[in-house]
């Protein structure tokens, strides 16, 4: 994609890409507006705070998942890693009375360690990431449950300074949402600016070409998994802060939610495109729809089916979008050879 930066079709291309995230954001606002029309308290401060908080964890995990999916891999172990890190930190709080800040550090480090294992096995042993992370999902979940062993972490055992992260607000915006937003912004900026991060897209678009072009694919993919694990670990710490209670079901089933959010947010499942901002917006959209359904008093039995239909629509829409882009690029190539007819370079 970077090589095509000179083609005259670029302004259209860039705007189409930007449109994807804008489209998701627009959908969020539309759903929000519809729900508010039906029930005015949906726009209350409390309600909006809850919308942000509810989407935070999935959005955070979605950032790491995006990095991995962009390289044409997948990380199915994020939910189990979140659960394990949440419990380990909680357990350390109650038995070792570690300081609050180290809770975050330990969670991130533990998550990164598991991510590193995933990354190593995927890159060095050349094992498909689906298999590695699926196996890791089982192993980590089993280990987590063995550790918990019925002794769940209770709110009274979590230092209140730590739990404060879960509910305190600043100018009405929950700290949790701010932390996640900072992570999204930082990673998003890196993905656009720094070469190693942009190489992830190249790796996902065409692994062989990327390697032949001299990109250190293995190292980049390894870092992507490491980051995904680290963010899942951070998610575990935030989970502990938010719920102040951890049993062995923490994070259970999160992985498919995260992938769904990421896909709805415009990240292509076969890699090469998509942004973390889009993924975060996807998480926000799915959560807003969930809450909106409750607000309009619809039967809770419909939310699952609607989520599924939405996911299919998002995938189909992204496919259509990428076909348009491909057509635009192909005709841009032709226009590049015939500048006089540059106007024809735009997609039909």
């Amino acid at each position, binding site marked *: 994609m970077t090589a095509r930066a000179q083609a005259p079709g670029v302004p259209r291309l860039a705007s189409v890409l930007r449109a994807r995230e804008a489209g998701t954001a627009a959908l969020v606002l539309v759903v929000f507006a519809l729900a508010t029309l039906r*029930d005015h*308290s*949906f726009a*209350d401060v*409390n*309600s909006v705070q*809850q919308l942000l*908080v*509810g989407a935070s964890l999935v959005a955070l995990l979605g950032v790491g998942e995006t990095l991995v999916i962009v390289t044409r891999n997948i990380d199915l172990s994020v939910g189990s890693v979140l659960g394990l890190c949440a419990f380990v930190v909680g357990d350390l709080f109650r038995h070792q009375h570690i300081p609050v800040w180290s809770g975050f550090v330990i969670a991130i480090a533990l998550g990164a360690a598991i991510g590193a294992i995933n990354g190593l096995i995927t890159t060095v042993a050349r094992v498909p990431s689906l298999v590695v992370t699926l196996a890791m999902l089982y192993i980590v979940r089993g280990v987590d*449950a*063995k550790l*918990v*062993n*019925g*002794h*769940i972490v*209770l*709110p*009274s055992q979590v230092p209140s300074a730590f*739990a404060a992260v*879960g*509910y305190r607000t600043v100018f009405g915006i929950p700290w949790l949402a701010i932390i996640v937003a900072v992570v999204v912004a930082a990673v998003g900026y890196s993905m656009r600016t720094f070469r190693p991060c942009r190489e992830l897209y190249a790796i996902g678009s065409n692994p062989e070409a990327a390697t032949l072009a001299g990109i250190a694919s293995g190292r980049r993919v390894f870092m992507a998994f490491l980051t995904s694990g680290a963010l899942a670990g951070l998610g575990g710490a935030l*989970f502990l802060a*938010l*719920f*102040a*209670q*951890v*049993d*062995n*079901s*923490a994070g*259970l089933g999160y992985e498919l939610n995260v992938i769904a959010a990421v896909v709805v947010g415009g990240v292509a499942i076969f890699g090469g495109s998509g942004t973390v901002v889009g993924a975060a917006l996807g998480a926000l959209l799915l959560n807003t729809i*969930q*809450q909106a359904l*409750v*607000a309009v*008093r619809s039967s*809770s039995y419909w939310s699952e089916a609607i989520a599924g239909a939405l996911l299919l629509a998002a995938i189909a829409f992204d496919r259509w979008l990428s076909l348009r882009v491909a057509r635009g690029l192909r005709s841009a190539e032709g226009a590049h050879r015939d500048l006089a007819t540059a106007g024809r370079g735009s997609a039909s």
Partner: protein
Amino acid sequence: MKGFNKMRIRTARRQAAVVFVALLAGSGLAACSSSSSGSSTSSSTATSSSSASASSTGIKQGLVVYYIPKDTQNPYEVLADQGGEKALSELGGKVVVSSGTTDTAAAQIPSIQAAIQAHANAIVIAGNDPKALCPSLNQAAAQGIKILAFDSDVNCGSSPNHLFINQADTQTIGTSEVDILAKEIGSTGQIAILSAAASATNQNSWIVYMKQELAKYPNMHLVKIVYGNDDPATSLTVLLGLLSAYPNLRGIISPTTVGIQAAAQYLNTHKSLLSKLVLTGLGLPSQMKPYVLDGTVKEFELWNPSNLGYLAGYAAAALASGTTSLTTGSTFKAGSLGTYTVLASSGVTGPSVVLGPPTVFTKDNVTQFNF
């Protein structure tokens, strides 16, 4: 060159197979050694001090009772299982706790099969599903194994006939929950129920009586039932949805220890909501203590889960020894809890025994309990 590559790949795979098998055996051995360190098997055999009294009441020695909780991690169930172990050890028998990790019937069926193959004398099960366990339980009953359910009943009709150890009278639980809430909100306003799994038998039977009792309070309206699936994260999520959909909500009943804990934690950190929202339900005093002491929750109720398991253990032993039966009015001694009587079937519930009335916990007494 091609042949050389082929050979290399073949030998690589052969080596792979050997190492694979070695590791398989190794992991099997590892699993084996972890079992001997006593993961979920609990066997307690009594000393002879109680065997004299045991045989005088007609209870057989060496009874094996399989406890099959909803899953092996639920703290409430763990307490109940421990009560069962205490009971059987007093009687010279033993308890084997076996279940899965997910709260599904499919996770419990292998445990029922294991009980059958081990020729257990009785099965005490907390059903994850009202009906899916019935075929397996029926097979067990056909082998002469006595079937008891506790905490969450199974609806198998007469196949098999089983005894339900009820923690408290179903109707009393339902009505008292509503009465407690009504007292606190002045019998007026919208209320909601934060339940567990949508299919949980016990939840649904309590809710039936709650709705009946609500008829006595014409100014109280039940606006929604939400399902937290006994999972703290889900409970919080559905609670938030509830709060945003019903801003004028006055009261919440959460008849599940996980749900009430999650709701209490949220109210504790958003104290402004307490000015108009009242929370009650079924909770463990050890978990709810901080919330009661600082006023987030005024009253809630429960019973001692350990006693529930203890009672189930004595009932299982009595049935297996033939000293009591499922006929209405039969009695049996339950150790330190006293004598219990089998109640008649009613509705979908078969013969049952009731532990006792629920205990109401308030600021004044919550510190006295350590469960």
